[in-house]
């Protein structure tokens, strides 16, 4: 190509490294451990409503690990991350708004 088509995409096609199968295995172990913790603390009844933020954080961690490593977002263009995070953010906001409108947080 005489003219670089991706003139505005300096950071777009960056490829900063590649995880090894061992990395993937480690991620899988972390995911399993987090799941075990979730199930474990589930039996601690004294937490009451406090379990909600704990489980939210743990699930978000699992979500992020799968997205960043298995779905390769950490190593891929930020455009992909933008599209996915955009969709998720809107989804979370709308869900919270609906819950608010149904007096979920009252």
């Amino acid at each position, binding site marked *: *190509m005489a003219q670089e088509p991706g003139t505005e*995409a300096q950071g777009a096609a960056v490829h900063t490294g590649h995880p090894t199968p061992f990395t993937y295995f480690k991620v899988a172990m972390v995911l399993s451990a987090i799941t075990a913790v979730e199930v474990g603390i589930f039996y601690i009844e004294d937490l*009451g409503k406090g379990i909600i933020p704990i489980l939210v954080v743990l699930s978000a961690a699992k979500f992020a690990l799968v997205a960043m490593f298995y779905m390769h977002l950490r190593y891929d263009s930020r455009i992909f991350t933008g599209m996915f995070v955009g*969709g998720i953010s809107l989804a979370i906001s709308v*869900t919270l708004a609906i819950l608010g409108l149904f007096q979920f947080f009252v």
Partner: protein
Amino acid sequence: MAEATAAIHGEHEETSTGLNNRKLLMWAFLGSDCMFFASLIATYVVYQGKSLKGPFPEDVFSIPITSVSTFVLLMSSMSMVLAYAALRQGSVKSFRIWIFSTAILGMTFLGFQVFEFRDFVHEGLTLKTNLFGTTFFTLTGFHGAHVTLGVIWLLSLGFHSFKGGITPDNHLDVDLAALYWHFVDVVWIIIFTVVYLFGVFPGIN
């Protein structure tokens, strides 16, 4: 250096962003599918605790069993990513093993779902019984439908590889399926927490 790596990995396309069209499409689709599941999940949560009659979640859920199926699906994501890695490294045979493993783990997950649904029906919970039945079966049913389509896709890729249809050159075909598969796993992570764990935790209401 980045250019060379990218060229080896075949990721520098002749597009305005340098990204592949089909990959961009898949990510746009996944963003869109987030809104689909968000609507189903929001409906579930809005109606949580509002059923006028049972069975209720604590009557039917078995956290230990569902934890196992959750673990199975998480492992299927690992085998999926290993399938892709094997293909990138040139080993179609390893790819085949891992992708069929993924499909089998996916089918195992579906098997758990089917048994769970049948159990619930036996205990008197159907789509029609109450708000819990309606929202639960719809949400998990559509997730299961996504998993089923994923399994079909993975099996097709696996069988295609027998005819020489999958090579390191068209790794993108596998990458797209992998992204879809991981997304389906990630949605389950949310459903497991919101529906099962929140649904049954005694201290929550």
